């Protein structure tokens, strides 16, 4: 069907999402690390609109934006599904993905905004724990879904103590289970480096998210 390639960076959670999705489906791919201080001609050619990673290639055809890429992966390789088959359940999952995407980056704020960002984040985590996770093992039920992947490197980033301290017991258990999944366990990022990178990004362009 064609070669699969991923251009990404080791400090971006968005890159990890794609790697995890591909590995969960057992799809072989070439990974190319992009130097973000010196964006390659390849990146600028295939993502001229946003000039960002990750960029995904299948049979030479590029796709950008992590959630667009994951939906494509799901449709092209439907085994080990990351989305439910029922349209209503799918709509619910997509709703929570958007919620996580919209609220997520505020956690990476620094300085004065930080306390408020943490408060907002906690509120958000409580809602996610109560309404999206409930008593399930993963957000997808017994198996990992797109939502687990998105939240796996969510805005709580590095804040496991946060989950413990604020008694988000179910999320704490979920995170432990998530990190035990073999494909995830063997490919976990350096969280400190990632957090530092995300905060720098936030400082540079506070208007975008």
């Amino acid at each position, binding site marked *: 069907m064609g070669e699969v390639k991923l251009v990404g960076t080791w400090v971006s959670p968005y890159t990890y999402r794609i790697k995890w999705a591909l590995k969960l489906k057992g799809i072989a791919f070439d990974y190319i690390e992009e130097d973000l201080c010196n964006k390659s001609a390849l990146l600028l050619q295939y993502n001229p*609109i946003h000039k960002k990673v990750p960029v995904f290639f*299948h049979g030479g*055809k590029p*796709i*950008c*934006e992590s*959630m*667009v*890429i994951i*939906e*494509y992966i799901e*449709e*092209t390789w439907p085994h080990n599904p990351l989305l439910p088959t029922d*349209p*209503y359940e*799918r*709509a*619910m999952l*997509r*709703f929570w993905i*958007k*919620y996580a995407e919209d609220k997520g980056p505020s956690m990476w704020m620094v300085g004065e905004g930080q306390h408020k960002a943490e408060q907002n984040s906690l509120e958000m985590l409580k*809602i996610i724990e109560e*309404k999206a996770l409930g008593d399930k093992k993963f957000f997808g039920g017994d198996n990992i879904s797109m939502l687990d992947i998105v939240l796996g490197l969510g805005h709580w980033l590095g804040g496991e103590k946060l989950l413990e301290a604020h008694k988000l017991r179910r999320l704490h258990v979920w995170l432990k289970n998530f990190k035990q999944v073999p494909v995830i366990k063997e490919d976990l990022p350096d969280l400190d480096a990632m957090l530092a990178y995300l905060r720098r990004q936030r400082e540079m362009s506070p*208007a975008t998210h």
Partner: protein
Amino acid sequence: MADEDVVLLDFWPSPFGMRVRIALAEKEIKYEYKEEDLRNKSDLLLKMNPIHKKIPVLIHNGKPVCESLVQVQYIDEIWPHKSPLLPTDPYQRAIARFWGDFVDKKIYGLESRKVWSTKGEEQEAAKKEFIECLKLLEGELGNKAYFGGENLGYVDVVLVPFYSWFYAYEKCGNFSIETECPKLIAWAKRCMEKDSVSKSLPDQDKIYDFALHVKKVFGIE
């Protein structure tokens, strides 16, 4: 699929609501439209969208679906046989989703609102960015009649509601979108020839009056 219970909680100037109206009209689905007073939200809205308390909310057989892009995809999946909005090919679907996401981030996003809600340098910068984004969309449209090809597709449904706001943007920003992006305006007018679109979009003058009212209420000069 007769006797399906479909309710839409909406607010007439909302371009997000318009997306859902168009999608339902394209699929010829009968539904009950309920206008919400956003200063006095109904119990139904608060119950059906407790997280965001926002419209539009699509209620299908009593179950709520929120977020307009999620709603449009849901409508397309539930009623796939009439006027399919997303293409069948996965790569073409990815392209459509990419541009839908682009429209949401760049045209409906917070930066573009500065075109009508600010003045001076801030407004000029917002106008420039806004036009650049519209031109990128023109590039994607190319010589096609619609973003969906021969028929209305996902990107058309996601973008065209914004056309109802163009006049308000032009008056507040003192510029002409048609001069900068004639192909896009031609596309929008082509979409408006369809009932599903023309009956879902309010009159541009009414939107302009609404925008002025909002500016007054929020003390925006």
